[in-house]
């Protein structure tokens, strides 16, 4: 497989009255063609800002990408002019947002919102764009597509709106789709449908996907590779298998233990991650997970642990990665 996206040392900061918020602090990962990569973490760990940084949609002047490279098919997106970047958005890289209820424009018809992207980037005429829109709605499993085009977002349920968002994202046959918590706002049953749909479509169409989530359950089934983010940094990465069965960072381990699992014995207690995520405006030199970590030592306060290879593509940034218990043993 060839490399599609390569993020190197990305730093995005927000300049607020309370100080500089290091929302993304040296993130490095890559995505290969057709691959599904997950970025997992708590709210406010910088995972959405990473996505917006790739799209160059971080709200300026409050926020800015201050360092790093984002190579997409070899070109650094951060070096492109605004006009060049605009031609990539929606065309080569598309995005599906978290909140389907507010991400569609309430006063424009579904048809217009679907066709405008195609018309913008592919320059096709109205009839062709409409035909494409019907085709796309069929692709995302919406019946009666012709009629849907003349409807407005308020006619549709949350799940249906998210299908429309996915259809919009797919409309120009992008190379990469960034899905920022695509199912968080939906009912559990609908969540599964939407994830299944996204997985099937990206596999069938050969589209790479970055799926941003706080739900490790999503990761297990849909991602080829997983990046675990904490306080603006990727603290562990590897295959879904690595992360699930052999976590090498206390945070990943803590996350796994906080999620109920069917393969655990009945009556096993959930073990929440204690404390709050740190204030990103007040990070020190040391490991940012230290205050919540049961393995923390003085070394953790002195410097941030380097990212080290475990095996294969499994990396972890922890001084104590070899002292960690297996998640299974801990649970029983």
């Amino acid at each position, binding site marked *: 497989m060839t490399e599609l996206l390569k993020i190197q040392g990305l730093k995005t900061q927000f300049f607020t009255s309370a100080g500089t918020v290091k929302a993304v602090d040296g993130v490095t990962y890559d995505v290969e063609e057709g691959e599904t990569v997950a970025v997992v973490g708590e709210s406010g760990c910088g995972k959405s800002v990473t996505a917006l940084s790739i799209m160059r949609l971080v709200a300026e002047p409050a926020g800015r990408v201050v360092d790093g490279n984002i190579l997409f098919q070899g070109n650094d997106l951060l070096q492109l002019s605004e006009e060049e970047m605009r031609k990539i*958005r929606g065309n080569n890289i598309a*995005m599906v*947002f978290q909140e389907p209820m507010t*991400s569609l*424009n*309430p006063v424009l018809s579904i048809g217009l919102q679907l066709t405008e992207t195609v018309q913008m980037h592919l320059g096709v005429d109205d009839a062709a764009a409409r035909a494409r829109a019907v085709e796309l709605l069929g692709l995302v499993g919406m019946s009666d597509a012709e009629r849907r085009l003349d409807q407005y977002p308020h006619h549709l349920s949350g799940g249906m709106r998210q299908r429309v968002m996915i259809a919009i994202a797919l409309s120009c046959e992008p190379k990469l789709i960034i899905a920022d918590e695509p199912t968080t706002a939906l009912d559990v049953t609908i969540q599964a449908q939407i994830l299944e749909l996204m997985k099937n479509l990206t596999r069938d169409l050969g589209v790479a996907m970055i799926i941003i989530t706080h739900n490790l359950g999503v990761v297990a089934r849909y991602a080829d590779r997983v990046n675990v983010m904490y306080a603006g940094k990727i603290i562990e990465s590897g295959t879904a298998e690595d992360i699930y069965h052999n976590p090498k960072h206390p945070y990943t381990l803590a996350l796994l233990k906080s999620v109920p699992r069917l393969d655990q014995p009945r009556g096993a207690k959930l073990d929440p991650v204690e404390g709050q995520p740190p204030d990103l405006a007040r990070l020190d030199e040391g490991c940012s997970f230290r205050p919540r970590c049961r393995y923390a030592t003085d070394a953790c306060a002195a410097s941030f642990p380097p990212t080290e290879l475990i095996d294969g593509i499994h990396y972890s940034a922890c001084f104590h990665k070899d002292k960690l218990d297996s998640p299974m043993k801990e649970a029983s």
Partner: protein
Amino acid sequence: MFKYTIKRVLLMVPTLFGAACLVFFLLRMIPGDVCELRMAGEGGYVDEDAIKTCQHDLGMDRPKFVQFVDFITGFAVFDLGESMWTGKAITHELGLRFQLSLQIAIMATLVAVIIAIPLGTISAIRQDTWLDYAVRTFSIAGIAIPSFWLGIMIILGLLISTQAWFGEPWMPPIEYVSPLEDPISNMVQLIWPAVATGYRYSAVATRMTRSALLEVLREDYVRTARAKGLLERIIINRHALKNSMLPVITVIGIEFAFLMGGLVVTEQVFNLNGVGKLFVESVQNHDYTMTQALVMLVATVFVITNFVVDLFYAWLDPRIRYS
């Protein structure tokens, strides 16, 4: 949409009826009446019988309820009756004045919209730049400066500049001509009061456009539009402006209705014989029929403007159209 329209039209009736009740009874609570004022206004002695006769002639000695029914039924069939003060038909008194006030209101609205929407949009897009500050200063000034003062300045400016350039002072014509008769001299006369009132009006609308647009630009769907790689022009015009027009249209509607009866001082400054001046005179004269007619006229304009605003709402927002 059809049902919505019908519902809105039917809702006008109770509003107008309420306005009619209020004006009818409030007017009669003011001490004195048109007969006393006309005969004894100078403080001299007047025979009681003469006042009684006058009141009888004007139908004011009938029971209040009968007078009220008379007024309501008259209004319902557009028969406004005669002015109690001049004795002439109210429609005759109103004729040109209403036309003049309506024309100024429409022109001021046009001036306001033409200024406000582009300025408000630029101000929002270029938030916190010198352009934004300039627009905000311009609009704050518009709110702070009274229209009549601006009117005086405009007239003085015209006099002084024409004197300086052509050696002969020039002032806009004082006599009102219908735009159908002589559109040019009509425009030359009315453009100045329209600008004087339109400036303040535009200031309100500019600020509303700016704040509404700023709010919409933070919405998720605008971020979606950006993520689609649309041109900035399309994002603003199609995705943002349409959503931000709702509060702006409300403000424009309210201001328009206000202009119909509220331009008393500006009319004085430009020596225009409009509805505002007539309004003040008729209240001073205790001219019940005229005041009632004027209040109902302004109320009707208000209600119709609101109706038009609601139609705009429905046109802009499908959630209203389909509910």
